[in-house]
Structures are given as C-alpha cells and as structure tokens.
C-alpha cells in the first residue's frame, strides 16, 4: 500500500479504491509504470493537439528544475530544500511531512509528440508542460468528392 501524497477522508478513499479497481480491469500499465505517492505529484491530460502535464512541485526555484525529453520519454528532476530548522537551533519539530531532497520522475509520452514544440511554465508551485503533437496524429476531416 502506498502512502498517498495528499491523503483524503475515508469516503473519497473508498471512491478512489473503486476507481482503481475499475482501471486495473481495462487499463494496461506502461512498462515504466505510473508511480503514485511519489514527489512531485503529476496530472496528465491530452487534447487533439497537445499533451498537457502538470507537475505539482511547490516552493522550487524554476531554474533548478530539469526537464528533459528524449525519444518520447519525459524526465522531470530537481531538488527541494528542507525548510526545517538546522539541528543546532533550539527548535522542536512536531510534524515533518513535506518532501525534501532530490526527486526525479519519468513519464512515457505518446509516440506522436513533437519534442521541439514544448512549452513549460511554472506558476503557483505547479510546472505545466505542454507538448505539441505532430500534425499527422491530429484528427482530420476527410472531404468526400
């Protein structure tokens, strides 16, 4: 059992369990898997023209995030500083839940993405990567003569 990054109340946990059971029936997982509960959390979606990736990595200098695409494999890596006080300081740590240290997440992209048309923005602690898909993969209306 993984530890959810953002745990919720019991009712939504049951809801999630049901959804996951459903997914495991009709969803063949990727060979790289989709690790859950790791930092940073990721949401992935797609439109006919692009693949949209949202990386929830709060409190990181955007310049220190390394985003790479190599042969339709996207890697997001970086490091997050610890905000806890140094050991020498006279402070008691009561709760320590936030992630600190180096992180790396890898996502397999669809084959039709164009690695040269990538747009990445960092706002409110979320890195939004938008990757265009090649023309050929976009749905086209074929006119009948």
């Amino acid at each position, binding site marked *: 059992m993984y530890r959810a990054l*953002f745990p919720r109340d019991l009712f939504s946990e049951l809801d999630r369990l049901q959804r996951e059971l459903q997914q495991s029936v009709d969803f063949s997982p990727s060979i790289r898997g989709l690790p859950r509960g790791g930092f940073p959390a990721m949401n992935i979606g*797609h439109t006919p023209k692009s693949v*949209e990736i949202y990386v929830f990595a709060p409190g*990181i200098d955007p310049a220190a995030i390394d985003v790479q695409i190599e042969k339709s494999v996207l890697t997001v890596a970086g490091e997050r500083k610890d*905000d806890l006080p140094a050991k020498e300081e*006279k402070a008691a740590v009561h709760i320590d839940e936030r992630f600190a240290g180096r992180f790396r997440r890898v996502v397999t992209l669809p084959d039709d993405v164009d690695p040269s048309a990538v747009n990445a923005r960092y706002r*409110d*602690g979320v890195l939004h990567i938008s990757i265009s898909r090649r023309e050929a993969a976009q749905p086209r209306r074929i006119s009948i003569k």
Partner: protein
Amino acid sequence: MSEKTAVTKESETARNTAALMPPVDVFEDAAGITLYADMPGVPKDKLSLQVEDDTLTIEGEIALDLPADMEASHREVSLPSYRRVFTLSRELDKEKVAAEFNQGVLKLRIPKAAHAQPRKIEVKVA
C-alpha cells in the same frame, strides 16, 4: 433543537466537499510556532486562513489553466481543493499570526503570547 440541526448540516457539507490534506511541517522555538504547508496550484486569492476560537483552518482552491478540450488520462491530484484544520493551544497569540504564500508554499508564524514567553524571574530579597 434548532442548534442541533445546524450542527448536522455543517458536518454534511464538510463531508460533501472532500478535500486533499496538504502535507505540513510544524516546528516550535521559544518565541512561537512555524508551519509550512504545500498547496501547489492555489493562487494567492484562492487561499483562505481562518482562526476561530482555538481552531486554525487552512483552505485553498486549485486553479490550473486547463485547455477546454483536455481529457485527463492520469490524475494524482484528484480533488480541486485543500483543507486542513489544527487546534491551537492557549499560549499562542491568535491575533499576531503572520502568513506568507509563495509558489504554492504557505508559511505561517504563530508567536507565543507575551505572558507565555520564557522570562527570567527576579528574586527579591525581603
């Protein structure tokens, strides 16, 4: 009777609006308590902090710029809001809570009330 209905209604709405629990760091020094909370995706104007009696409530709504025709294929952040409630202890000064919110990280500083700060007691000679 009417009070009881009000309480039931409140707990129902709390359950209906299920929210994510943001991870926090809390540490304490002689002068007060510092709290950090991760709430990525929340713009400054959608963050709400409330101190009522002895309860501190942190809430935030996620606002991402999603393309209108986007279909989600994988979701780890599956609810649009965060909420977490803490009970404050008596010696904390609720009037002087200072908050900073930067790139999805909330930093709260709650100082201890003047009477609760460590102080030296002078011994008078009679």
